[in-house]
């Protein structure tokens, strides 16, 4: 059995106004992969391709060792999927949906399902049309979590949710990770969630993967340096620095390949380093996208 839960190589897909271009993503078993990107970047398309719902034009897709979309039936037995635009049947109750899922999957854990009902604050006898947005998202997630699938593929699981609901969901996602055989891939443009629970992060923008690293290494590579530049000094381009914004004597350098010697390198040019700051994933997200778009346009 393959060590990779998800293995996309050179995946391309062309639509009229958008195309996915040679996407490579590997997620080892037992890890959480966060997919970040602006709206329309291709996160949902990538997820659909790895679910076998959309056939790639080029490239190899293997999920839990199965080729997609040819072996999608076998794969989908072990995958739990939910997406932000997914709806359940409005005229039916949550209980009905639970019974339906239970009738298909033998791995359904009713005890855990009842626990989730309590934790999520949901009423099984209520019809779906009476659920609020947040309750609907949690209901869809319950239907997926109670099966204890080996792979969870979630497209925007916390989007549009209040902080309490978000926390409830993150708690269950991490709860699933107590089992080292389980893997999670989720997409979000909520960088806080990705920063918190992801082991690996992949950035997508305009159909291309622009970065893919393990989170700790990644966060370590990015720094913001606040500099004071005396008059007459021109800041040189230093390796590892992707952007410098200067106004008068104050400059801010953004580095995506930070080395411990970098502040000294600036000091040697005559500038003074006031502070070296870590960046949040959100700040990295924006800087990264801007930088990669500049590179493409250049």
């Amino acid at each position, binding site marked *: 059995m393959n060590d990779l839960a998800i293995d996309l190589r050179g995946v391309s897909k062309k639509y009229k106004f958008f195309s996915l271009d040679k996407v490579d993503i590997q997620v080892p078993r037992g890890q959480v992969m966060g997919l970040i990107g602006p709206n329309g970047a291709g996160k949902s398309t990538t997820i659909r391709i790895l*679910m076998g719902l959309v056939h790639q034009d080029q490239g190899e897709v293997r999920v839990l060792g199965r080729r997609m979309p040819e072996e999608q039936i076998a794969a*989908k037995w072990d995958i739990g999927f939910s997406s932000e635009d997914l*709806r359940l049947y409005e005229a039916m109750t949550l209980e009905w949906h639970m019974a339906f899922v239970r009738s*298909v999957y033998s791995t359904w854990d009713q005890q855990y399902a009842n626990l989730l009902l309590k934790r999520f604050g949901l009423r099984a006898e209520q019809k779906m049309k009476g659920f609020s947005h947040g309750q609907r998202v949690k209901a869809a997630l319950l239907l997926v979590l109670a099966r204890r699938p080996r792979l969870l593929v979630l497209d925007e699981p916390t989007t549009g949710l209040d902080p309490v609901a978000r926390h409830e969901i993150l708690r269950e996602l991490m709860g699933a990770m107590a089992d080292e055989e389980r893997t999670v891939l989720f997409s979000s443009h909520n960088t806080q969630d990705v920063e918190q629970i992801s082991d690996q992060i992949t950035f997508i923008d305009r159909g291309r993967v622009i970065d893919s690293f393990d989170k700790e290494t990644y966060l370590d590579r990015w720094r913001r340096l606040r500099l004071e530049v005396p008059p007459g000094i021109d800041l040189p381009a230093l390796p590892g620095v992707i952007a410098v914004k200067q106004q008068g004597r104050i400059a801010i350098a953004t580095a995506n390949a930070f080395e411990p010697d970098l502040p000294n390198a600036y000091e040697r040019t005559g500038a003074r380093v006031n502070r070296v700051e870590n960046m949040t994933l959100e700040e990295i997200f924006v800087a990264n996208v801007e930088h990669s778009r500049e590179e493409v346009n250049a």
Partner: protein
Amino acid sequence: MTDQTSVVRQMVWKDLQLHRPHIIATLVCGAAALALLLLKHEGSTYFGAVTFFIALILVGCLLAASNILNERKKQTLAFVMSLPISSIQYTTAKLVGTVLMFLIPWLTLVIAAIWLIAVKGVFPHGTIPIALIVLTLPFVGFCAITAMTLVGKTEGWNIAANVIFNSSYSLVWPFIAGTPSLVGDLGKKEPVWNGAVLTFLGCEFAAIVLILAITYYLQSRKRDFV
């Protein structure tokens, strides 16, 4: 791991449950129409039969639309496709489910018609072959509409299919009426199963098989399921 036919069965059952109100409504209407036919009054007999025939066709059209198009419209398609099924199995589940729902009013009508002719003697027994031919037409039409809606995926295709096949009846009936070998033996006391009748019935059956074959072929060529 449950086997695949069981998953398809669960999906068909799910669709039947979702349409329970429709199914009950058609059963009730069917029973009412039948009761009307039992009055044996010339006017009401014809009135009941024609009304029921029309209602049948309408029900068929609505069902195909509802069962197939709603998954896309109401955005439940992703939920269904995340189940362990292929698009071919989805096709099967939708076809079986939609046809089953249609069968309820249709079989009621067929049974009522045969019973009225063979048991109650409203019409001579010679009319049995033609009754079968005429009653099978909406079933063929329904299969065609369902197939086109499933493959076309949009409301536009559903409407086009409805227009094409529902208006085609007006072409077929005169043809039937104008074919002596089909209508020549209407007055007889016993049903006459001549070559023409059998050929026509055979063609109807073949049409259904052809529709299914084309549907599965076209569905298997699709590369995107959502």
